């Protein structure tokens, strides 16, 4: 009996909010582990994904599709706790390392590898693999995007075959998290024969031989990627026999595959799809937290000359005025119906440093127009404002891969037009969009992020240091007070003080209005009724996939395949 059998039948439009409310209230924690039994082992789950996997080497992971698979094939030294704590090692559970010891000065940590851990090819996991994995991420020839995130780790030394010692450059609150969360351990004996510079195109990066509870069974690029349970795994075999990732060209085709029964799971349903899935009797919907959020960023510097302020957005009054011109709630309702929350500030609500009580810039078109008038932007004959011969006309950069942001772009165009600003939507492929970000070559852009549990990402996004090419401060926002506050926030070992510093920093940022805070999508996954998932974590719904189960009595044809290989 699942949570949703208890809900009454209703008309289509009323289902979504009720279904969601129920999912949240009842918790819907169908934790398979609590109803364990040998009858629960087995089954196949087909996941419809809106993008294909490109690489099976964790150090080269770029997209979420890549991450889903590598997280299942490979292990970390330890797994983050359910409360997503990133300070010290509180809450972390042993994974590849069965225990660890801090040196008294915290400048090094010794990890003891589980002696039963084996690679999928049978060879045992050694400390030298840990050393190799860390060196690989830091190798500039590889070009891993995670490189800058483990800058604090100096190196790893091998004390004996099962003990690896990590050496840090300095003591920070998140040193343990940095190492353990960002580095997935890969086999040295398979990969070390290939030079790092050639790793991107090499075949070994596609073999996916790790130590995780799933192993790679088959991979037909563009069609499907199949994982099967590693039966001899040191942590116990996965409950499911098989997980198949079926890529589709875009979100809607993937959702369509799920709704038609081709796939068993889809990670993010849109409002009308939630209604459909909840009402068709074959599926259930599960809401889970996530770290996704999005905002419209203004470019504060001139794209052609970074030392000069942007001719339009360098002026704080203009930014605040444009923020006032936009009814963020109405836009949210239009795009997400009830399946999204308003973003309050620079980060999502799921983070520990969040404070939703911070003052917001109100929606007030009259004030917006007055503010623009007083800033010197006077409406011209065609309604578009002009100042010193320059029209209030600018571009809005968004990637063509995101339907949500496309919709926001069109809504913004009209909202800004009403206050006398002309917007040109620059919709390009993702690579061109990303290139413009890095070189501050845009006027405004719609940016969507998925953050790590750690608040240190804010340093990359909002400090002066992040303006350089390797950082992610794309708006080029610079405020020395904020720099100091964020530094203090991330250097503090006391969560309460971190929160206080961060709160003050956010308050200043929000007053300066370098961006219009838009949305946090409510992540609602669709599942086939027969699947009993475990709790889905905010940093990746797939993290507990090895413990999902399908009761023996509810299995269908695809669950009967078992562990036999393809014909």
């Amino acid at each position, binding site marked *: 009996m699942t949570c949703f059998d208890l809900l009454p039948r209703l008309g289509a439009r009323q289902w979504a909010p009720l279904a969601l409310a129920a999912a949240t209230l009842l918790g819907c924690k169908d934790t398979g582990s609590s109803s364990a039994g040998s009858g629960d082992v087995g089954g196949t789950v087909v996941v419809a994904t809106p993008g294909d996997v490109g690489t099976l080497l964790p150090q080269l992971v770029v997209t979420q599709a890549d991450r889903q698979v590598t997280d299942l094939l490979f292990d970390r030294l330890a797994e983050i706790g359910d409360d997503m704590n990133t300070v010290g090692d509180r809450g972390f559970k042993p994974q590849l390392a069965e225990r660890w010891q801090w040196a008294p000065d915290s400048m090094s940590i010794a990890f003891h590898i589980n002696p039963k851990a084996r690679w999928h090819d049978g060879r045992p996991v050694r400390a030298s693999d840990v050393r190799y994995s860390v060196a690989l991420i830091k190798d*500039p020839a590889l070009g891993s995007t995670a490189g800058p995130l483990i800058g604090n780790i100096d190196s790893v030394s091998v004390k004996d075959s099962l003990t690896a010692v990590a050496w840090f450059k300095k003591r920070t609150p998140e040193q343990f998290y940095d190492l353990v969360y960002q580095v997935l351990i890969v086999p040295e004996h398979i990969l070390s024969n290939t030079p790092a510079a050639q790793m991107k195109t090499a075949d070994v990066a596609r073999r996916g031989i790790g130590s995780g509870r799933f192993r790679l069974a088959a991979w037909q690029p563009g069609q499907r990627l199949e994982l099967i349970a590693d039966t001899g795994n040191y942590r116990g075999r996965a409950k499911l026999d098989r997980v198949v990732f079926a890529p589709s060209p875009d979100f809607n085709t993937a959702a369509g595959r799920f709704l038609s029964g081709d796939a068993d799971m889809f990670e993010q349903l849109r409002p009308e799809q939630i209604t459909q899935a909840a009402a068709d009797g074959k599926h259930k919907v599960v809401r889970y937290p996530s770290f996704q959020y999005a905002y419209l960023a203004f470019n504060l510097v001139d794209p052609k000359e970074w030392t000069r302020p942007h001719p339009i957005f360098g002026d704080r009054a203009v930014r605040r005025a444009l923020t006032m011109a936009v009814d963020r709630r109405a836009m949210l309702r239009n795009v997400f119906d009830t399946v999204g929350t308003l973003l309050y500030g620079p980060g999502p609500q799921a983070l520990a440093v969040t404070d939703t009580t911070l003052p917001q810039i109100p929606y007030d078109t009259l004030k917006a127009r007055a503010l623009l008038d007083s800033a010197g932007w006077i409406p011209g004959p065609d309604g578009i404002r002009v100042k010193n011969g320059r029209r209030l006309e600018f571009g809005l950069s968004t990637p063509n891969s995101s339907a949500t942001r496309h919709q926001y772009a069109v809504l913004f165009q009209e909202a800004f037009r009403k206050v006398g600003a002309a917007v040109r939507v620059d919709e390009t492929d993702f*690579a061109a969009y990303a290139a413009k970000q890095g070189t501050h070559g845009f006027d405004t852009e719609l940016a969507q992020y998925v953050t790590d549990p750690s608040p240190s990402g804010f340093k990359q996004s909002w400090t002066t240091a992040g303006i350089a*090419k390797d950082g992610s401060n794309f708006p080029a926002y610079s405020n020395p007070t904020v720099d100091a506050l964020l530094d203090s926030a991330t250097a503090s070992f006391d969560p309460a003080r971190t929160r206080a510093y961060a709160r003050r920093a956010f308050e200043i940022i929000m007053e300066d209005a370098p961006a219009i805070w838009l949305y946090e999508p409510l992540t609602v996954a669709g599942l086939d009724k027969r699947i009993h998932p475990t709790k889905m974590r905010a940093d990746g719904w797939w993290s507990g996939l090895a413990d999902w189960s399908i009761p023996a009595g509810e299995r269908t*044809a695809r669950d009967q395949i078992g562990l036999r290989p393809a014909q």
Partner: protein
Amino acid sequence: MRRYLIGRLLQAVSVVFLVTTLTFLLVHLAPGDPLSAALDRPGVSESVRAQWRAQFGLDRPLGEQYVRWLASIPRGELGYSFSHRRPVRDVLLDALPRTLLLAGLALAFSFALGIAVGVLQAERLGSSRDRWLGRVLLLLYSVPDFWLALLALMLFAYKLPLLPPGGIVDPVMHDYLPFGRRLLDRLAHLVLPVLTLTLLSSAMVARHQRSSLLAVLPSDWMRTALAKGLSWRDAVRRHALRNALLSTITLLGLSLPALAGGTVFVEKVFAWPGMGLVTVNAIAARDYALITAGVLVISIVVVVGALLADLAVAAADPRVRMQ
């Protein structure tokens, strides 16, 4: 005959050569370069970018890159696709047979259907059957292909879930099914895309068939046959058809670019990972190596097809060879 053959071969080669060059120029004139997608993102250091560009020869002058590109084609080394993260050759080897399957089946069915309908019309020229068939054909000829595909998808895959909503095979079960069921699975996935393509092309074929039949009707031997007492229907079927088939074979050659490029929308709507979809996605992702190779392969297919069609006509009709 030999002179004709050599002449056409030379023509075909020169066309392919021109296409290659134009594609290369087009792609390299566009802003960015083949590695932009992979490298021009924050987090990748300048030295890594320079190293990659050097490794792939992108810092050399355009002329040198062009010569290297030309030299690599006969070796079959078509570069590396950054959007698929596999060698381009592998991507195309997967995609090309899928499009050929789709286009081949659609071509065969549409020609069979089109010729039959064209003949049906010519048999009863001016009758209401002729006129109504003509209107239906014109309707099919005028319909946007992506719209027809969307309607077909909506109707047969969503409203009445009879057929699968896209893809080539069932993503899970296919490899575990017995041979017979596997064949059925493949056929089920073929029905909608082939049906859509067939309907669209057969209209053109039927119209062409009708018009070429009508072109031979006033001829002398036709009048003679009729005078000799042959019924109109038999006269059409026996004599006119044979002559008109020639022009229809030429149409085959002409419709190859149509089919090669025209599968794009059908492939997109039905998520059929063939040449059309792969090339369009490559263009959207700025995967230059794949774009160039994709366009090259499509052009070669088209040119070869046209060549074969022309040769078939030349073999059958001596008049053509004299030109």
